[in-house]
């Protein structure tokens, strides 16, 4: 267990060292977060009204509602994108084979390679929230941070499975998975990113109810804006964990199968 943890952090340190050789992107990310938060604030000011506030489930203002939706989708995007991006980088830098002949199991290589992107996304989101709180009154004080962390972990667990499936698709077909973009696009419409799903037509609301993104976002807003406890977000958490428990082992099995296929066909390092 200790060795696994140490091996896991090796990948984080590798990516941190590589990232540290590029200095300017950190600055750009801080500026990008400022611009993103500012844009959302002025859009919110433009559309905000007492009727809108009443229609929003947890949002004290449309700004807080949309900012949580926005940053949540950043996470979702990272969870679904990080594995095939790591795979692509390993293929492009030709480090995939040296990694695969090392004594580290594939599952650890995958998980370890995802760690830095998740941490970097968390930092970026922290900057978003900080700008929101400093400049535009985002209510930091009302959050239940334990619930936020638990919801976030459950979200990563659940949606990493889709990312691993996407990486399996990349291994087999050498192209990014179009389904990933469809899920992200669909979830931005029916997941409640920028508006509540209640305003959708009835048939879309039914689809939204079977979409785990809806539950994750609902739980995140409740934890972050209402300060709801872990028990209070129990139902959406259970849906997320249930989805993850089924999807994660399935995705790892599919990825392992895809890797074996490429080892049989000799296309592992082909682009």
């Amino acid at each position: 267990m200790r060795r696994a943890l140490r091996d896991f952090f090796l990948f984080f340190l590798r990516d941190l060292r590589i990232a540290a050789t590029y200095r300017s992107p950190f600055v750009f990310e801080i500026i990008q977060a400022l611009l993103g938060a500012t844009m959302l604030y002025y859009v919110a000011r433009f559309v905000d009204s007492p009727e809108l506030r009443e229609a929003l489930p947890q949002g004290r203002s449309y700004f807080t509602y949309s900012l949580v939706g926005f940053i949540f989708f950043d996470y979702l995007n990272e969870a679904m994108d990080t594995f095939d991006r790591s795979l692509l980088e390993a293929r492009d830098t030709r480090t995939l084979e040296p990694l695969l002949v090392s004594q580290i199991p594939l599952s650890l290589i995958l998980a370890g390679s995802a760690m830095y992107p998740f941490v970097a996304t968390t930092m970026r989101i922290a900057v978003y929230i900080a700008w929101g709180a400093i400049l535009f009154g985002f209510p930091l004080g009302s959050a239940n941070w334990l619930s936020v962390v638990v919801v976030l972990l459950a979200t990563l667990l659940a949606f990493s499975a889709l990312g691993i499936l996407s990486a399996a698709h990349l291994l087999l077909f050498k192209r990014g998975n179009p389904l990933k973009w469809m899920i992200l696009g669909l979830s931005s419409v029916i997941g409640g990113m920028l508006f509540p799903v209640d305003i959708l037509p009835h048939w879309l609301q039914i689809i939204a109810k079977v979409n785990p993104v809806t539950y994750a976002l609902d739980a995140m807003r409740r934890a972050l804006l209402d300060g709801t406890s872990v028990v209070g977000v129990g139902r959406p958490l259970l849906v997320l964990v249930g989805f993850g428990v089924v999807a994660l082992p399935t995705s790892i099995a599919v990825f392992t199968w895809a890797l074996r296929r490429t080892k049989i066909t000799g296309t592992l390092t082909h682009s």
Partner: protein
Amino acid sequence: MEVQPGEAVALLGANGAGKTTLLRILATLLVPTKGHALLAGHDTEKEPAAVRKSLGYHAGSDLGFYARLSGRENLRFFGRLNHLQGADLEGKIQKFAKRFGLEGVIDRQVRTLSSGTVQRLSLLRAILHEPTVLLLDEPTRSLDAIAAAEFRHFLKSEVLAQRRASVLFASHTLPEIEFLADRVAILHDGKILAIDSPAALQKAYGCGSLEEVFLRVTGRNVSFSEEAHPA
């Protein structure tokens, strides 16, 4: 075909004969379509994790380093992936960097290194954890004559004679094969057509050189026109 501890076997064959494929199967990067392969007593398909514990692999072309990290940082990372750590890891990097003439460049970013230096770095990575089985695909491909000779001597004296590792390597350089290999396997179309020591092969086929043996075994004729060799 077996390779014993302390033995070096060379794979000799034309392009596409199956040398790299065989090495990649043994390195668990490919699954054989027929038959099976064992490395250090473990099936490469069924027990890949056990196989990788004994394995050092140098790929012919895909050398694979993180270009923005230094040679030392890369070696540390891959060394740790093979469960080396602390003073042991640092000591081995230092020792082999000195042995491979990399002392002056090991702290430079890999993207600034020449192809020959990256090749030496890749060879160092393959032997860093002192594996009992070394698979080398064209190990001296981009090396200059001096570096190539030094590496061959290192393999012969330290890896084979002292550490008694098993070495299977693919090469197109016949003097290299004659210097290093206890036995030579001649491959053609994915099949081993002949395997024995260079001297025994020459005797068996009545040839004066390994090159002649290779051409005879694979049924190749090499003819030169007068125009190609003007007087």
